[in-house]
C-alpha cells in the first residue's frame, strides 16, 4: 500500500495532456466495462428485486459516465473493449460478487490517479468517483454485508486495478 501511494504520488507522473489522455481512456475502459456488465445482466433477465433495481439505476449512471468521458476525449477516445460476462450475468449471486469487486476496483482506480491528473480532470473524476463508491456500498447493503468498514479506501495503481479487473475475466 505504501508502495502504491508512493507510485501514485511521486513516480514522476505529473499532470500533462498526455497523462490526462491516458488516464481518461483508462477510466473510459472501466466505465464501458461497468455499463456493459449491467446492461448484459438486465438483458439476461435473471435479476430480481433489489438487485435488479440496483442494476437498472446503476447502468444509467455508468452510461452517463461513459458519455461524459467520450465527450471529453472526442476523437482520442479508445474503442469500446470486447467483453464477455459469463455466469456473472445469469447467476444473481455471482452478479452481486462481481458488481462489488468491479465497483471497488473503479473507486480505487479513480483514487489512484487523483494525484496524476490536471485540475480539470480531477474535478470531473471527483464527481464520478463518489457515485461509484455509493454503488459499491449499495450492492453490499443489498447482499447483507457491511457497506463500509475501513477509514480510507485503497489507492491502487493502474497496474493493480488491471489485475483486479482481469480476475473477473470480462475483458477479451
Amino acid at each position: 500500500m505504501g508502495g502504491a501511494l508512493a507510485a501514485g504520488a511521486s513516480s514522476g507522473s505529473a499532470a500533462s495532456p498526455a497523462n490526462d489522455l491516458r488516464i481518461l481512456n483508462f477510466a473510459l475502459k472501466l466505465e464501458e466495462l461497468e455499463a456493459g456488465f449491467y446492461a448484459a445482466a438486465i438483458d439476461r433477465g435473471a435479476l430480481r428485486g433489489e438487485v435488479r433495481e440496483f442494476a437498472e439505476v446503476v447502468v444509467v449512471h455508468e452510461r452517463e459516465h461513459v458519455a461524459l468521458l467520450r465527450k471529453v476525449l472526442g476523437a482520442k477516445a479508445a474503442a469500446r473493449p470486447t467483453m464477455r460476462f459469463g455466469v456473472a450475468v445469469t447467476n444473481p449471486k455471482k452478479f452481486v460478487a462481481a458488481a462489488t469487486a468491479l465497483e471497488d476496483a473503479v473507486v480505487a482506480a479513480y483514487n489512484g490517479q487523483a494525484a496524476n491528473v490536471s485540475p480539470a480532470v480531477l474535478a470531473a473524476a471527483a464527481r464520478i468517483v463518489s457515485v461509484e463508491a455509493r454503488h459499491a456500498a449499495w450492492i453490499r447493503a443489498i447482499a447483507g454485508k457491511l457497506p463500509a468498514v475501513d477509514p480510507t479506501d485503497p489507492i491502487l495503481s493502474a497496474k493493480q486495478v488491471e489485475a483486479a479487473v482481469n480476475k473477473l475475466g470480462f475483458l477479451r
Partner: protein
Amino acid sequence: MSDTDLTLEQLDRDGALREAIAKLDEAQATRADLLRRATVGSAAFVAALALPASSRAAPSGRDRDILNYALTLEYLQSAFYTETDLQGALRGKARRASTVLGAVERAHVKALRKVLGSAAVAKPTFNFKGVTEQQTPFLRTAVAFEDLAVAAYKGQAGRIQAKPLLVAAVSIHSVEARHAAWMRYLFGITPAAEAFDEPLSRPEVEAIVAKTRFIAARTQTSRKGRRPRLTG
C-alpha cells in the same frame, strides 16, 4: 514507534472499532480479515497524512486551513455518532451502522489532528437537539451529514496543494460516499440518486452547518498537546 507503522490499536484507542468489528456477524469476511483490512486502510491513511516527523513538512497555510475545515466536519460527525451510541436508542442495522461509523469518523479526527499538530482547531461543543435519541431523526440527520461531507471534500479536491494530502483526502472522500449510500439505504431512499455528485464550496457547507445550529460553541485553537474532551 514510527508513524508509518501505526496500527489499528493506536488509531482505535477506545476499542470501539475492534468491538464493532467483533460484532460483524452479518459480514461474510472473518474478523481477522476485517481487522487486517482496517489496519491496512489506517496505515495507508496515516502514511499519507502523517509522514514521519523527520521528513514531513508542515502543511502550507492553505492546506492547513482545508485540513482544519475537514477536521471540524469530522468532529461534527464523530460527535454525532458517539453521542448516538451513548444514548443507545437505536436498534438493529442502524445501531450497528452508527457504531462502525463512529469508530471510522473518530479515526478521521485522530489522523487529521495528528497531521495538524498544534495547529489543529479545538473540538467545538455540540448540541444535537435530540436527533441522536430516535431512529428516524438519527437516520435523516446521518444522510444529510454524509452527503454534506462528500460534497465538502469534493469541493476541496482541486485546492489541496500537497499531493500526499490530496491522496489522503480523496481516500476519505469516497469512504464518506460509502457512508452516505449506507445511511440512505437504511433510511429507505436511493443510495445513489444521480450519475454525478456535485461539490459544495466551503461557504456553502458552512452555511448549511450553521443552519442546523448543532455547533453550540467554538473553543479557541487548541494548545500544543491538548486533547479533545471526548474521543469523538
